[in-house]
């Protein structure tokens, strides 16, 4: 009898402790986690916030009130001035990036289709070569490509930058397309074949349309990466006219030196295209990244 009572009391204590844990410890823990997360997010966001704040202030305002004060007056004109000065670079970036993305997509869709859907000798081998190539550092290609472009008379042109970007993006894009086509049921192709369609027709009429989800992810990623490239833009160009905006922001920084409000404005203007694309298509961006997960 006494034994039973002890057992019951013991059981009750366990239950009580359980509820105590649920009532106090869990919410505390959760609160702490949320607090920590918010703190991390704030620290993470500070560089962007600081840049945005600085971009719309005057230099006297910054020196008098410190870098973290709210603007005493909002100088939107800073951004306008930066935009006008960056315009040639922004134009060049558009001319370089759009054809590069289109070219990368076309070439890699075709290659990915072949690798995924056709059985042929050397298929695995070809695939592994392409995966490995996505890790080749730009450093082993810079010198000969620079020399080759000079020999071809293509130094300081848009076309040389476009070709090089397509070349650099092929391995990653082929990898993504191959993996995507792997998930498309093979019956689609068989059906097309029975109807007597050629391989090219099957590719163009059936596989390109189904590839839309992979393509949207790839477009967002490739746009960002190609737009953000710096080294090729530096190496393959001479005059201001052919330089992309990543090179432009550096000369802009050099020009304004300690006029930090203008430098920040320049950074904001240069970042807007990729930021806008990222914010609008974040889902595609992240999906593409987890599909291939090679670069950053």
């Amino acid at each position, binding site marked *: 009898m006494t034994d039973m009572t002890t057992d019951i009391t013991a059981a009750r204590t366990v239950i009580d402790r359980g509820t105590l844990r649920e009532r106090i410890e869990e919410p505390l823990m*959760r609160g702490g*986690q*949320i607090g920590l*997360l918010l703190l991390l*997010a704030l620290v*993470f*966001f*500070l*560089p*962007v916030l*600081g840049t945005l704040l600085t971009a719309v202030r005057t230099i006297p305002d910054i020196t008098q009130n*410190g*870098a*973290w004060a709210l603007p005493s007056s909002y100088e939107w004109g800073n951004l306008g001035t930066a935009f006008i000065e960056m315009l040639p670079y922004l134009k060049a970036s558009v001319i370089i990036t759009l054809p590069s993305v289109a070219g990368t997509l076309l070439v890699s869709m*075709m*290659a990915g289709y*072949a*690798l995924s859907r*056709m059985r*042929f000798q050397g*298929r*695995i081998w070809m695939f*592994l070569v392409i*995966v490995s*190539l996505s*890790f*080749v*550092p*730009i*450093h*082993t*290609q*810079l*010198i*000969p490509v620079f*020399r080759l472009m000079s020999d071809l008379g293509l130094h300081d042109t848009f076309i040389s930058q476009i070709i*090089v970007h397509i*070349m650099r993006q*092929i391995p990653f894009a082929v990898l993504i397309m191959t993996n995507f086509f*792997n998930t498309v049921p093979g019956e689609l192709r068989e059906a097309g074949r029975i109807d007597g369609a050629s391989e090219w027709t099957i*590719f163009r009429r059936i596989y390109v349309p189904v590839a839309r989800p992979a393509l949207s992810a790839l477009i967002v990623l490739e746009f960002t990466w190609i737009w*953000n490239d*710096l*080294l090729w833009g530096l190496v393959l160009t001479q005059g201001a006219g052919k330089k992309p905006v990543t*090179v432009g*922001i550096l000369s802009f*920084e050099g020009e304004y030196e300690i006029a930090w409000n203008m430098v*920040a404005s320049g950074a904001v203007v*240069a970042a807007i295209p*990729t*930021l806008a*694309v990222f*914010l609008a298509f974040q889902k595609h*961006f*992240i999906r593409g*990244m*987890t599909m291939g*997960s*090679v670069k*950053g």
Partner: protein
Amino acid sequence: MNARLTPWLFLMPAILIYGIFGAYPIFQTFAISLTDQVGVAAPGKFIGLQNYITLVQDEYFLNSLKNTGIWVIAFLIVPNSLAITIALLVKQTFWGASLIKTVFFLPLALSFAIVGVIWGWIYEPDVGLLDQLLIGLGLDGLIVEWLGPDAATYSVIAAAAWRQTAFATVVFLAGLSAIPTELIEAAKVDGGTRRQIFFRITLPLLKPASTIAVSSALIHALLATEIVLTMTEGGPFGSSEVVGYRMYMETFWNYKFGYGAAIGVIVTLMTATMVVPYVRRMAKAQERDWS
């Protein structure tokens, strides 16, 4: 259309473009590294391994190699552990999670040129965002010359780690979503503590994600050229140079193409050894899919 030829026709554009502008240059770089070529005008004379012999005695190069080592160690630890923490926290919090995610992912949209410009302003002595923040918090004692000879390498690493953390967070979040919740629930029912669940279940199941995050960190740490170029140009006095930046300098500033090519070869060999586990994993997955 010949059935045996068809796959190669589809592969042709990719092979041609990569072959001419990507693959052939790789071999050329090896060849150029064995010459004393200066500039593009004339090919250099064959000097065997002389460039490599000079390199191992070159103080600037050895210093950049040391810094690259610091980059690799810091990049393996800092962004990845931060990202795991962030991913676990975001995964458990539902309130405002998507906005929070956007904040953490944002740096991925920024180029190294812009990251470099922004962080240059952050590190500016006295008036910069960091010094002002520390003064505001009463932590003036912590202030050092962020981009001075002693701290520059670490400061640049911090800027790059900001971006790398964003990437690793994406990868680890994807990895976490792939873990079935029933597994964690079952472990909880069986009385597993948080710590046990994390180390015995979550962490082992994050292995594929970790492979990706680690390979990416290694590659970015080994190359790290653009961010060094934009933030410090390797300075002051070469103190923040890394191997990739050294290659760029020797080639496009000093016009020592042969010497620069030799550094390029070394960078490539270092990268190659680092990505072997990743490529092997990809190969296994693909063979499974296709067999």
